[in-house]
């Protein structure tokens, strides 16, 4: 983990270990199955409505990939357009620099509070913590992010960061914590969704009306017009983006689109893939500043933080095309069982498994590329056709190479793989092993099946029986019965 980088959580266990803990939490599994199941069905229904859904996906993929190939060019255009429209652009190479820029901007206003919306990228850089060190309180205003913040918790989903919490838990958090942050929860708050939403509304309203500075993320920015956009469901974004005097937007450099017209594609792909809605309730766009209307001071912080390095990898870079819809999380059978915390990263699920190791370097997130069965459901769901399985196997190779480069002593796995490779590329050795397999297996079997085995194979045999390999392999059978017919190649 790099010093000031919060993409991966300091001290997080490897995926298999974190998953084991999550799997033991049956409430979590029930919450997740329900939530992902519902949203999965909704997404399928609304994407099926569009005859040109596949063409849209292809268009989205092509647009994103083309933009990534000429990213420098589009970013410079974006800077020009934003500046011309009255905004200021700042470039941040990494998390520390981005935090320095934002903190300085906030302090220049003389304020000690900011409201925040769409803040995944600010989680990536741990902005709240950096602001707190300088005496600035940052308030999350998205309902789910508010729950996470009040609960002193981590987000576990891209779109629904509190997906792991149920209503009763949320009520308890509100009752316990809201008072410490501002307006307390109403007396006798119940766990009815309406009451919870109302409590959050009252709590947040105070902050919106008081706030002079807002920090936002961005879903996209159009290079030709300098327009920045945020899509959301609750209207909290609209409040943050219009009420304060100063607006500071932190945006990953990969979010730029060549032109305003390109939004046509993404404003269709995003809501249908993410929430299963035809259109999201709030789409806010702004271009620089407008006198007498909205924030009078607009700053756009363009964040690299590992993205340029990711761009250099021609296979892996496709992960930067991600529009953060979370469809891949919702269809992922692994995510459905383990939840987001197991990934130990701001970006969980299949996209996290390919993006996180690239942003921080594979050696800092070794277990993530392996946290998948390669079933491909994510690739099928992705609105911009990111071939996540392809990137996963690509990164697995990088993990193995990194270990090889580092280790003077090969790992046990590497030794097994080496031995297996020599057998599996040679028919002679393979048949020799096959001849041995049956008697060897007989030694540990009972009544034709193999039960619990010691060592690493115990992980297999703890829950499954294994058949004893038969006496005769197919190739031996072929030689015995048809030996004369096929040449001796």
């Amino acid at each position, binding site marked *: 983990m790099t010093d000031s980088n919060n993409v991966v959580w300091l001290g997080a266990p490897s995926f298999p270990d974190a998953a084991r803990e999550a799997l033991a939490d049956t409430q979590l599994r029930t919450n997740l199955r329900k939530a992902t199941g519902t949203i999965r069905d909704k997404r399928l229904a609304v994407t099926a409505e569009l005859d040109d859904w596949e063409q849209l996906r292809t268009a989205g993929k092509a647009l994103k990939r083309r933009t990534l190939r000429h990213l420098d060019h589009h970013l410079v255009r974006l800077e020009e357009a934003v500046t011309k429209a009255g905004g200021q652009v700042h470039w941040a190479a990494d998390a520390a620099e981005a935090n320095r820029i934002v903190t300085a901007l906030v302090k220049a206003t003389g304020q000690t509070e900011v409201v925040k919306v769409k803040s995944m990228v600010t989680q990536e850089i741990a902005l709240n913590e950096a602001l707190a060190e300088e005496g600035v309180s940052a308030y999350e205003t998205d309902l789910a992010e508010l729950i996470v913040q009040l609960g002193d918790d981590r987000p576990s989903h891209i779109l629904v960061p509190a997906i792991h919490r149920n209503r009763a838990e949320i009520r308890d958090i509100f009752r316990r914590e809201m008072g410490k942050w501002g307006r307390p929860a109403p007396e006798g708050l119940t766990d009815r969704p309406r009451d919870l939403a109302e409590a959050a509304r009252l709590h947040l309203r105070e902050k919106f009306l008081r706030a002079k500075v807002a920090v936002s993320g961005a879903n996209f920015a159009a290079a030709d017009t300098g327009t920045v956009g945020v899509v959301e469901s609750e209207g909290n974004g609209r409040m943050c983006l219009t009420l304060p005097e100063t607006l500071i937007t932190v945006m990953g450099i990969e979010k730029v689109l060549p032109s305003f017209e390109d939004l046509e594609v993404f404003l269709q792909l995003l809501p249908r893939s993410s929430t299963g809605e035809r259109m999201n309730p709030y789409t806010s766009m702004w271009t620089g500043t407008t006198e007498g209307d909205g924030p009078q001071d607009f700053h756009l912080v363009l964040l690299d933080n590992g993205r340029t390095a990711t761009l250099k990898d021609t296979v892996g870079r496709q992960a930067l095309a991600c529009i953060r819809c979370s469809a891949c999380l919702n269809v992922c059978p692994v995510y459905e069982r383990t939840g987001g915390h197991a990934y130990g990263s701001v970006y969980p699920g299949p996209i996290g498994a390919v993006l996180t190791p690239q942003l921080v370097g594979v050696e800092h997130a070794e277990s993530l590329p392996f946290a998948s069965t390669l079933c491909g459901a994510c690739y099928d769901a992705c609105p911009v056709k990111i071939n996540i399985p392809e990137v996963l196997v690509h990164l697995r190779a990088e993990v193995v190479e990194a270990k090889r480069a580092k280790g003077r002593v090969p790992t046990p796995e590497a030794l097994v793989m080496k031995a297996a490779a020599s057998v599996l590329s040679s028919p002679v050795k393979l048949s020799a*092993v096959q001849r041995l397999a049956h008697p060897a297996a007989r030694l540990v079997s009972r009544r034709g099946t193999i039960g619990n085995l010691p060592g690493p194979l115990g992980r297999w045999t703890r829950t499954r029986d294994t058949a004893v390999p038969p006496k005769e392999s197919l190739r031996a059978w072929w030689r015995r019965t048809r030996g004369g017919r096929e040449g001796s190649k």
Partner: protein
Amino acid sequence: MRIALFITCFNDTMFPDTGKAVVSLLERLGHTVEFPQAQACCGQMHFNTGYRPETLPMVRRFADVFAQGEYDAVVAPSGSCVGMVRDYHRVVAEQYGDSALVEQVEAVTPKVYELSELLVDVLGVTDVGAHFPHRVTYHPTCHSLRMLRVGDRPLQLLRAVSGIDLVELPAADSCCGFGGTFALKNADTSNAMLADKMRAVLDTRADVLTAGDNSCLMHIGGGLNRLRTGVGTRHLAEILASTEGTTGP
């Protein structure tokens, strides 16, 4: 047609009956089956676990062996191994091999089919004259479903089997949790997925679970067996090869 059987190392060693079934099925349909003795493994396990340079000799051998004979097609009773050949042999050849190997891979790959693809698309049959009087449910393995897009070809073939009572598997397209070395590296998650898959299988009250890949069947079947459920597993090829009086469940 002259068809070469690529048995895959796993079937060869653990499930030779599947290979025998492919041979008898194709011969029954009037084709010539060859078994090139020099074949070994497609390299999937090494590739998917990140051991790419180690995969090269397997890719090379596959290309050599199946480029040599005059085959009209190469068939393998494994969706995931065919997926490996089709999607990734070229990648390995380009990354570690030479241009001759790339050319060879490009020449061989289009001839390689998974069993249901070969039967339905190339040989143009869905009714292979099989008889299998049992209650059967079909699990579409992820690689057949999403790498190869075999779609409902296996089901077309199964529906035409006489005597079969084919029942739909709930949540059929969700992964069983095998995933090769995933089952070892992420054993707990794999087990949780397996548990759900087994529940779905038991809900169908089928006697036999079938699929186009013995690896997934070994994983699910191993679990079903451990729980003494009495549900058996049978590769699609074995059901299609069965005729009146040949096999029980």
